[in-house]
Structure formats: C-alpha cells, structure tokens
C-alpha cells in the first residue's frame, strides 16, 4: 500500500471519527447530565437526514437543508423528551433501554409513514463536489468540510461547557443534580435543553452523512451502536473521552477495512478474502472495546459518577 493511499484512508478515518463524535458527544452529554441511556439517538440522526433531504429537495439549498436537519432533529428531540424521556430519568437502565428501544420502532415506522419507504438522495452544492490536492493526496472537498464542521463543533462544545453560564449549570448538573435544583436552577428546562443540543448534533451528523450515502429508514442503527462503542471506550459522560474514542474507532475501523482484506489475500482467493476481511474488520472495533474495558472497566476517561 502506497503512502498516498494510507494518507487518504487516514483522512477517511478522521472524517468517520468526526461524524461519530457528533453522535457520541450528544449521547455522552445526555448520559453525563441526566444519567439516561438513549437508544433512540440514532433515530434523531435519521430524522435529521430526512428533514435535510426534504428541505434541500424543496428549496434547492443544501445549506438551508443542513440547518433544517439540525433544527428538525432538535424539535423532535424536545417533543420526545417532554412526552417520554422525562419520565425515565428516575427509572433504572433496563426501563430506559426498553422505552428508547420502543421509540426507535415508533420513529422508524413514523418516518417511513411520512416520507415513504424509498431511500431519498441528497445533492450537495457544486462548490463542494470537487477534490483538492493535499500534498500527494487528492481528497474530496465535501469530506474535508465534514472534518471542519466536526472540529468547529468540538470547539463550540468546549466553549459552551467551560465558558458559558449554561455550561456551568451543565457541569453542576453532572456533579450534583439535587444541589443545583436547590439553588434555583430549573432542572427540567436544563434537561430539555441538553437533550435538544444532543439531538441537534445527531441531526447535523445525519444531514452531513446523508449526502455521502442514501437517506433511508434504519440508517441510524449501525451508527448508534458505533457511537455507543465510542462513549464506552472514552468513558461514559466524558466529552474528551468521546472525542478521543471517536477518532480511535473511526481510524481503526477505516484502516481495518482497507488493510484486512489485502492481508487475507496472501492466503485466500480474492473474493473470499474481501468478504472475510471486511467482516473481520467489522469485528475489530468491538475487539478494541473489549480489550479496553477488560483493562479499564470504566473507559479511558471515566467521568465522575
């Protein structure tokens, strides 16, 4: 494998990691602040992608679609939080898993009812369609945009949490929920806000990825499971852990998918090597997670819990 190809795959890994970070940061924030395990996060990702594809289709503007995707997911997040999620904060994890599993079924079928079962396609503006040269590598502009968006979101989240008043409340909420309630912060509004931020990030991720693949029902589920792997590796509740975990998973998964099939070609037929290699590459990140958890049962950066 040439150096240029390795670099290109490394960039792909970073781009994938950035997308995972958008999902994982919301999940980990929601878990850190409210102690909620939200399986329906992947559905918010899907809702974002559908709204983005729909609005882009009507207005012809991808940028408007992107905004609508994030906003649509946030609004859906608020609706879901107020109707269902709110009742789950005091419940045990089993109830949370089940109720949010039920939400996956409802949101998936609901989306199929509203938008139909056919996949939608998202067109990106022609400005983003080309490629640029980065040294020896020619790389698509659109994927670079995703990386930039991810870096901006990471920076924004950092500033929001460490520099603003609402961020202070979020940090306080992670440490001691009763106390900040007693100090006069409206907990339930804070929780809805955090949930909406998480949902908006998921919607943004879905909208961005929607242009790379088809927008269809069930698209959120593989991503959801990977995002869970990310936050478990990073330590549930830690945004820093989510960032590092996302990069780790993104790069290991992408490189594994390229390297393993060519590795198996040494002693197998090409077609068999391709299928065995790619299936084993899918196992790689779970192996990574098992090893990390066997050594550090609370992840790399355990948040205080």
């Amino acid at each position, binding site marked *: 494998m040439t150096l240029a190809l390795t670099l290109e795959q490394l960039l792909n890994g970073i781009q994938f990691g950035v997308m995972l970070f958008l999902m994982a940061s919301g999940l980990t924030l929601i*878990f850190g602040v409210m102690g909620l*395990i939200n399986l329906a996060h992947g559905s918010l990702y899907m809702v974002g992608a559908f709204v983005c594809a729909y609005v882009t289709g009507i207005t012809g503007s991808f940028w408007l679609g992107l905004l609508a995707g994030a906003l649509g997911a946030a609004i859906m997040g608020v609706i879901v939080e107020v109707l*269902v999620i709110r*009742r789950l904060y005091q419940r*045990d*994890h*089993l*109830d949370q*898993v*089940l*109720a949010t*599993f*039920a*939400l*996956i*079924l*409802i949101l*998936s*079928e*609901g989306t*199929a*009812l509203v938008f139909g079962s056919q996949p939608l396609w998202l067109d990106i503006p022609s400005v983003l369609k080309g490629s640029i040269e980065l040294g020896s590598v020619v790389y698509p502009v659109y994927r670079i945009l995703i990386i930039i968006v991810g870096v901006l979101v990471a920076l924004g989240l950092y500033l929001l949490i460490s520099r603003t008043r609402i961020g202070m409340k979020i940090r306080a909420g992670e440490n001691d929920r009763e106390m900040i309630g007693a100090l006069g912060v409206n907990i339930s509004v804070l929780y809805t806000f955090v949930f909406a931020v998480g949902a908006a990030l998921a919607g943004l991720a879905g909208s961005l990825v929607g242009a790379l693949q088809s927008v269809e029902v069930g698209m959120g*589920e593989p991503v959801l*499971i990977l995002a*869970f*792997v990310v936050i*478990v590796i990073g330590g*549930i509740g830690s945004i820093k852990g989510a960032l590092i975990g996302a990069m780790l998973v993104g790069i290991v998964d992408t490189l594994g998918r390229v390297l393993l099939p060519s590795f198996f070609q040494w002693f197998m037929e090409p077609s*068999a090597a391709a*299928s*065995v290699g790619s*299936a*084993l590459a*899918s*196992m790689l990140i*779970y*192996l990574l*997670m*098992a090893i990390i*958890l*066997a050594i550090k*049962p*609370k*992840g790399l950066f355990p948040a205080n819990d």
Partner: protein
Amino acid sequence: MINSITSLNFTKNMSRESWVNLLLLVVIVSVPIIATLMDEVYYVNLSTRIIIIAMAAVGLNFALGFGGMVSFGHAAFFGLGGYVAGIAAFHSFEGTLFLGLIPASDQMLLIWPVALLGAAMIALLIGAISLRTQGVYFIMITLAFAQMIYYFSISLTTYGGEDGLSIILRNNFAIGNSNNPLHFFALCFFALLMSLWLSHRMVGSRFGAALTMAKLNETRLATAGIEPYSIRLVAFVVSAMITAFAGALFADLNGFVDPSMLSWHRSGEIIVIVVLGGVGRLFGPIAGAIAFVLLETFLGGFTDRWQLFLGLVLLGVVLFARGGLIGLMTGNARHG
C-alpha cells in the same frame, strides 16, 4: 432493582399467579392439539414458534430477572445454537466433514450437547470480561460482544455468509418423527418445561438465594463470604445455555439460519419479551412470547407497520404497567 423477591413468593397472590401460570400452559398445549385435529398445521407451527421464543426468554429471564444482569447480547447465544443445528444439518446432508475433520450428525441428541457446550464456553468468556463492569457498561459490552459474533457469522462464507443457510432436512430426534409438526411441538414443549423446571429449581436453591442477593445487595453477599462475581458468572452461563438450546430448536423449526438471528434487534426483542411478560416471574416469558408472536403475526398480516404498534405497546408497558402482563393478570404489579 427490578423486583424484590423471587417469582415464587409465598404471599396470598401466589395462588392467583399459579392459576395464571397453569392457564397459560393449558392454552399453549391445547391450541396445537385442536389445530392438528382441525388439520391447521399453520397454528401448530405458530405455537411451536411461541414455545421456542418463550424458551429463549426463559434463558434471559434467568440472568436478567433473577440476577439483575441486563444482557443486551443474548441473540448471540440464540444464533449460536441455531448455527450449530444448521451447520450439523448442512454437513450431514452433504456428507462432508466439519472443518474437514469432524463428521457431522443429524441427531438432535448429539447436536444439542454441542450447542450447549459451545454456548457455555463463549458465555464464560464473554461473562468473565463483561461482569467486571456494571450498569450501562455491562449493557454495552454484552451488545458489543454480540455484534462481534454477528459479524463473525457474516464472514462464514461456507455457511452462506450474509444470506444464511438452509436446513434442507430437519435434524432427527431419537423417538417420534421430528418432521411431524405435533411431534416437533411436543419436543419443544418438553424442552421449555425442562428449562422452566431448571430455573425454578436453581432460583429456589441456595445458589438462587445468593444470586438474588447479588442483585439486591452485593456487599452483603460478599460479607457473607460468597463472591458475587462467580455467582453471576455461573448464572450468566446457564442463562446463555438455555437461550442457545432455544436457538437450536428455532433453526430446525424454520429450516433456516442467517445472521439476523444474532442481530441486536433480536437481542432487544428477547428483552422486550421478558419485560412484556413480567421481569423475574417464572412464567413471564411465556406470556410475553404469546403476546409478542401474536402481535407480530396478526398485526404483521394486517399492516407492514406493525412495529409501530409494538413500539406503542412496549412504551405503554414500560411507563405504566411495570409488573408486565403477568402482573396485570394477577393484579400484582410488583414494583422493583
């Protein structure tokens, strides 16, 4: 805390719960017999499907209901059992050797021990690592291991990879004709009774008391000189074995195995069945499986969007009916 005491609490509700349990058994045995008399094979097979899915849930209920371990990866064991049955049938049909070494058999009495042993070994490995973690981490790591095995099953190109493997001739049992729907139902029903009896006896034993205490107060158990970790590990392995047994029967029922038997959706469904019936109640999985399969079959025949209704029902049960169906029927909505 999911529930306070084991399923056989000797309160005045006990009698009512036993009546409900008995009723469930009578219904589930009489339906296939009546269906056979009326020549409706479809309903016999539907009952067998309910029985087998109930058994998979009995397995999970042992870990989840009695041991408090929320495993989100039991589909891996279900699929493992299925693949053992499928691979055995495949090789004995083709007359080839497994891995080019081991002759295959189509005798269920040989296939089942292999499935149980395989599940036990994998569960021991998964459990040993997963049980070091708790809470959400446990849920997620069991999910991750199940995903690993799921992708492994896709990589099995010899056995159909993503497309799965057809069982052309159902495996044979020593007595009776396994291809006769009613005989096969009887076989599965007997297996279900065995698994119920096993969980009942284990929960009622000293081991069961320790397992319940591991869920309720692990420090107290440790103070009594019993290590919670090994108690949980044994329960996890037994639970996986019961579910794998059900998987082997499921493959023979459908004449087909594919990776979707191991998907995380399936793991979710097994949890749903346990909770729908009532967590930690011995007969809960049967009530849950009846409700689930009937919903799937009849709503599924009536609309493609049946999962929407499943989601709504499930949400209702989680939010408002915490004792599950058995809890509703006995009027004893035990809170955890």
